């Protein structure tokens, strides 16, 4: 009986300690949401399908390709979330799939390299002027 109470207490305190650790860690490490300029989050379907939203890094791709390759040849419209991309199209070789096919770049089986955003992050262009007009630079800590 006594050991059971002690055990429960210990579990309780371990719980509290873990919570305190988590809270402390969060307070110190909480990222400010200052992602790389022009990172695009695409989340028309991902969250609903139980996947993390997609992050497309412009900086990484523009080191390797001119805008023309994607925005003229491959037909990506200049609008975050505006291309109705889904996995069937990608596997068929459209959009991201024109390159992420195991020939030009690693293939679709690396789900979590694309589906890497914090769940519930809405579709957006990160650090865009519009985003900053809505939430001015100094105000980002909330």
């Amino acid at each position, binding site marked *: 009986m006594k050991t059971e109470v*002690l055990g429960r*207490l*210990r579990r309780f*305190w*371990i719980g*509290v*300690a873990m919570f*305190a*650790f988590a*809270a*402390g860690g969060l*307070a*110190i490490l909480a*990222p*400010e*949401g*200052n*992602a*790389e*300029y*022009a*990172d695009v989050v695409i989340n028309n379907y991902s969250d609903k399908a139980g996947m*993390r939203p997609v*992050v497309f890094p*412009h*900086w*990484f791709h*523009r*080191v*390797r*390709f*001119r*805008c*023309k*390759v994607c*925005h*003229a*040849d*491959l037909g990506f419209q*200049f609008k975050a979330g505006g291309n109705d991309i889904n996995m069937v199209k990608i596997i068929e070789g459209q959009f991201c799939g*024109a*390159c992420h096919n195991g020939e*030009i770049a690693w293939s679709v089986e*690396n*789900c*979590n*390299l*694309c*589906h*890497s*955003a*914090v*769940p519930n992050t809405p579709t957006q*262009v990160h650090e*865009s*002027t*519009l985003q900053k*007009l809505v939430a001015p*630079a100094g105000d*980002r800590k909330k």
Partner: protein
Amino acid sequence: MRPWKLGAWLVLGLALTAGAMLTEAADPNTFNRLLPSAAKRNPPPPDDGIHDPVNEGTHMLQPPKDAFGQLPKAPSGNYIDWVKSLDGKKIQPRYDRIDTAAEPIVMDLNIVREVKGSMPDVVYPHKQHTEWLDCSNCHPAIFVPQKGANQISMAGILLGEKCGVCHGKVAFPVSECVRCHSKPKGDGAAAQKTGTTPPDAPKK
């Protein structure tokens, strides 16, 4: 000592440290109160606030700073001057998805737009744009290819129209005013002639 008491002290200690750290962070007299610190620029994916640090793949992505080391700097955006990076061949982005030898069709034509108000006139260089883009990216949907046919305003640009379709989203933002407003009013000396390269970003 009973293990649970140890637990209690541990928690108290942690709470106090965390509390102290929090109050420190909230010092009302920091030197730069609103200016985001330069050290926080180009954060690695796990710390950037949009990538999920719990996701394994996040840790395989390249941190921007690893890639940006050698590239010419700029005051905003990615903090990289992409035009200079390309001109100086620091990067060699493909013009074709597969053909590494494909060369861009570059058009060297400057358009000067006289600006109302006090700001210097704007020089729009086709050269730097056609290095990256295809004519069809802008004409005719964003800009009608006819002199005088396009209404452009700063308000519209800030809302993502005209130049603002890219500038402020992917290309350098409008905070770098003088990169566009580069031709002083009433003196024909600077970069006016068709076919010249516009003056570069301001000398520092």
